[in-house]
């Protein structure tokens, strides 16, 4: 068979921009989105949702719906209450956290607009939707709770009356003595920033198909989810169906961004209803339902104090957060803001850090992880502070950062946030970014425009970032009261014919794992990436996994693939040694073949070994047939990618319109498996972060109605709204994993939001503006310039985002004693 002499040395696959193996299906429409699937006898479910933000349900009558054409069944919350259980939250962050019951189908009270109250099951989706209108339901209105600060005040109406409070928890972290550094600091700058509520809006709305598959309660649930493995555990715990009778499949999943890192009421309802009526039941979310009832993100009020010397040395940081939980605690609602708790210090050195987060219930959709999850909020706070502090001190904001950041020779570095940063080179990334950006020339142009009182002003925004990637060491999760682990699994099988199956516990939905895992395994096994199939997203085929979120998949799941591949080679070496009549210790493995050191000409390829292991005719003693191995990787610690982002905006001071003129980012995410995929992740992350800065906001009116309930009102950017980005990388390999990788999925989102807002504020500093609340709409920018508030009001009367008087008190952006908006 293959002779070493004839073998071409394989080009390394890792590090190359291999075109994606996923794409053939996707560009030709041969897809398997959950809504594409059907099962024999399948029925459609439609859900009646509460039009009230807060009300007591006094009567539900589904009988008229049952009489509608095509309707097979209809259930109120009370009809199914004993079967549905309560939706779980897996991150009770404190011992005394308030964890209210969360019925999947409300039967006593509704607590947000969109809360599910009844379901109809019918022959097709039109019939099901029609029949919803025949359900009779009476509500007794209760007062909505919409503003976090008002919710905590004495006498506020309560979201959960039996809890006796709207405060969910208070969580603290302190290092050093902030009071002491405050006392000795030359200046203490206070700021109040608002991270608005966002709607993740993946392009594929959620969908589920629950199908009873056997006589003993077996059931398969297809779901548009990021977390099929976690859903399996939670569905078993919630419904009482034994876990080993449940199969969960995440087929093609059209984006998630955290919103499908969730265990949803509809997954439980469809499962219970399908089991009850004995037929497959499909539910497909409309976009309006997606806006109302798929979890939201961000929504923090940040009260901040930064203590520094007059020379610009940062001494300490105090962070006091209010984090909107929404009405219920979903899977990691309370923990999401705490993912930022360790990151508010950013890349900077300081002596003291004091962090407090209070979770607050409101009668809105629950918040939970949205791309970045806690870390964008933290980065926004510190990077906005750095720009504002530089302005107060009258120094270049880049210089202030340089003066305070951790230097390349100081890694590994233990931060005031309690993390140990593995590696980084902030100097190198920043130098490259300023070079690509033309920083000095843009500063000169900015000065010219200021001097000329140009109606279109130029603003330059800076943001650095770092984040904790590789969620997560299971012991660390335990110490944070998260109830599960953070490991990841891979199995690799070299089949008798020599092709390879990689089974992964990650659950990709756009990230390109099929291609990237093929590259990792191809190099480790010495096979062609095209000879590798990657199996994922089905608990029957890939039984172990912790799924995909938090920029974890490569650092944890990719490492599991590498380890499994190395174990395959270890085993193959034993078989090859037997085949070559050599001591395995004398073999070397290169380019997919084992050779005896010093004896060229003798070779057994890994494919030949796999066939030998399959026939098992002549295996060495103690070696089991077949060639496969598994690895379950539990990381020991995190990895910390970083980057420097620079944004130039032109702000028309007459209209308030902001236009991004150029955007440069240089990220350092350690080693790279596929640079094309990495660049794509950065682009998409930038778009979402920029969208938070300029366009997107989930707005509830003063009755608790979501007024940004469709893509008409919730402004997901189009191609015409965004510029082309200039991206580059520096490479400082991670020291915490053998691949040297760090994770990239959230980088762009984390860094871009403050870069853009800093640029907008920088453009307006001659007008005395120190903050513009996100999203920096033309109206808010104009108002900030023209002295009508700081632009920090949630919205102005008559505008699309106007939410009535009730939301006014959450207006942010004012500094103590600082009347912003003064004319220059």
């Amino acid at each position, binding site marked *: 068979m293959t002779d070493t002499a004839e073998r071409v040395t394989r080009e390394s696959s890792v590090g190359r921009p291999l075109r994606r193996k996923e794409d053939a299906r996707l*560009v030709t429409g041969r897809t398997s989105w959950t809504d594409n699937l059907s099962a024999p006898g399948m029925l459609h479910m439609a859900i009646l949702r509460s039009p009230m933000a807060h009300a007591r349900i006094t009567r539900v009558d589904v009988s008229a719906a049952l009489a509608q054409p095509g309707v097979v069944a209809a259930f109120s919350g009370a009809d199914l209450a004993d079967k549905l259980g309560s939706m779980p939250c897996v991150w009770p962050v404190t011992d005394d956290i308030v964890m209210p019951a969360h019925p999947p189908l409300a039967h006593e009270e509704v607590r947000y607009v969109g809360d599910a109250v009844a379901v109809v099951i019918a022959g097709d989706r039109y019939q099901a939707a029609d029949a919803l209108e025949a359900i009779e339901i009476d509500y007794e209105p209760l007062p909505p709770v919409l503003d976090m600060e008002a919710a905590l005040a004495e006498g506020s109406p309560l979201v959960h009356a039996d809890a006796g409070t709207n405060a969910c928890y208070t969580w603290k972290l302190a290092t050093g003595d902030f009071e002491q550094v405050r006392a000795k600091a030359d200046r203490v700058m206070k700021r109040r920033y608002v991270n608005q509520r966002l709607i993740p809006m993946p392009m594929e709305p959620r969908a589920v198909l629950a199908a009873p598959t056997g006589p003993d309660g077996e059931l398969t649930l297809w779901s548009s989810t990021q977390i099929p493995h976690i859903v399996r555990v939670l569905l078993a715990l919630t419904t009482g169906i034994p876990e080993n009778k449940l199969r969960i499949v995440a087929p093609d999943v059209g984006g998630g961004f955290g919103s499908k890192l969730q265990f949803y009421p509809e997954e439980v309802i469809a499962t219970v209803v399908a089991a009850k009526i004995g037929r497959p039941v499909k539910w497909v979310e409309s976009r309006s339902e997606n806006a109302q009832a798929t979890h939201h993100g961000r929504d923090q009020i940040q009260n901040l104090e930064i203590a520094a010397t007059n020379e610009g040395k940062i001494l300490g940081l105090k962070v006091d957060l209010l984090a909107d939980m929404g009405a219920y605690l979903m899977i990691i609602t309370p923990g999401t803001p705490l993912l930022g708790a360790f990151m508010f210090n950013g890349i900077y050195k300081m002596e003291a850090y004091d962090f407090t987060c209070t979770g607050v219930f409101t009668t809105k959709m629950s918040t939970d992880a949205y791309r970045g999850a806690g870390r964008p909020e933290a980065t926004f706070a510190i990077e906005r502070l750095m720009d504002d502090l530089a302005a107060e001190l009258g120094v270049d904001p880049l210089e202030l950062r340089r003066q305070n950041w951790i230097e390349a020779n100081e890694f590994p570095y233990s931060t005031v946030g309690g993390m140990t940063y593995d590696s980084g080179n902030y100097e190198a990334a920043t130098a490259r970014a300023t070079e690509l950006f033309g920083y000095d020339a843009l500063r000169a142009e900015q000065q010219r425009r200021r001097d000329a009182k140009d109606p279109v002003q130029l603003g330059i925004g800076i943001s650095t970032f770092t984040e904790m990637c590789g969620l997560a060491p299971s012991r660390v999760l335990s110490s944070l009261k998260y109830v599960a682990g953070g490991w990841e699994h891979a199995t690799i099988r070299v089949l008798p014919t020599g092709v390879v199956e990689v089974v992964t516990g990650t659950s990709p939905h756009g990230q390109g794992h099929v291609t990237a895992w093929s590259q990792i395994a191809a190099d480790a096994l010495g096979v062609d990436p095209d000879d590798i199939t990657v199996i994922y997203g089905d608990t029957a085929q890939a039984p172990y996994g912790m799924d995909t979120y938090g920029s974890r998949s490569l650092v944890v799941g990719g490492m599991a693939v590498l380890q499994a591949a190395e174990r395959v080679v270890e085993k193959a070496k034993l078989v090859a040694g037997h085949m070559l009549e050599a001591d395995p210790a004398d073999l070397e493995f290169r380019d997919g073949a084992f050779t005896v050191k010093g004896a060229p000409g003798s070779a057994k390829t890994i494919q030949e070994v796999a066939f030998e292991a399959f026939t098992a005719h002549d295996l060495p003693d103690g070696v089991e047939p077949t060639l496969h191995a598994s690895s379950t990787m539990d990381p020991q610690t995190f990895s910390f990618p970083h980057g420097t982002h620079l944004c130039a905006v032109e702000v028309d001071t007459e209209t308030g319109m902001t236009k991004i003129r150029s955007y440069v980012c240089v990220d350092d995410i350690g080693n790279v498996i596929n640079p094309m995929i990495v660049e794509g992740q950065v682009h998409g992350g930038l778009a979402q972060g920029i969208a938070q800065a300029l366009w997107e906001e989930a707005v509830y009116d003063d009755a608790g109605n979501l007024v940004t309930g469709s893509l008409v009102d919730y402004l997901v950017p189009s*191609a015409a709204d*965004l510029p082309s980005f200039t991206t580059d990388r520096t490479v400082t390999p991670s020291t915490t994993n053998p691949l040297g990788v760090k994770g990239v999925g959230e980088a762009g989102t984390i860094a871009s939001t403050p870069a853009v807002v800093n640029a907008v504020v920088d453009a307006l500093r001659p007008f005395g503006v120190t903050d513009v609340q996100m999203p920096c709409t033309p109206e808010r920018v104009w108002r900030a310039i023209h002295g009508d508030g700081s632009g920090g009001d949630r919205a102005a009367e008559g505008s699309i985002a106007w939410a009535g008087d009730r939301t006014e008190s959450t207006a942010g952006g004012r500094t103590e004693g600082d009347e912003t908006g003064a004319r220059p």
Partner: protein
Amino acid sequence: MVKISITVDGERHEDEVEPRLLLVHYLRERLGKVGTVVGCDTSNCGACTVHLDGNSVKACSVLAVQADGGDVTTIEGLANGEWHPVQAAFKECHGLQCGYCTPGMIMAAVDLLANNPAPSEDEIREGLEGNLCRCTGYQNIVKAVQLAAEGGAR
């Protein structure tokens, strides 16, 4: 019920449909053309874009009865033996991640290039304004359309 006759991806179909049936639901649920997807309910996202008599339309904003007598091309009928150059360019330029917007985006891009074979970057961005993508930030979609305009991916 109304009787309609529609050619879809070269195949002629005669059906009786409710007058309110959307073209996208007709394609997906009656004909099994599930390559075309639904992303919103306000015709903002463009995920359902197909060609009707040679022009791109959002199939969620057309009733099946309006397409009576028409010739519809979906993403599934775009390749003629081999991939359309725009399909190849999307793969070559990494113009997709999750792929949910991709069928509509490709159909819109094909129509854009039919009307303007050598578009500038701004013309591409404005021409695709009616199609939303949440993954890519559009940069590689723009590159893909440019590549297809220049003669395509090899």
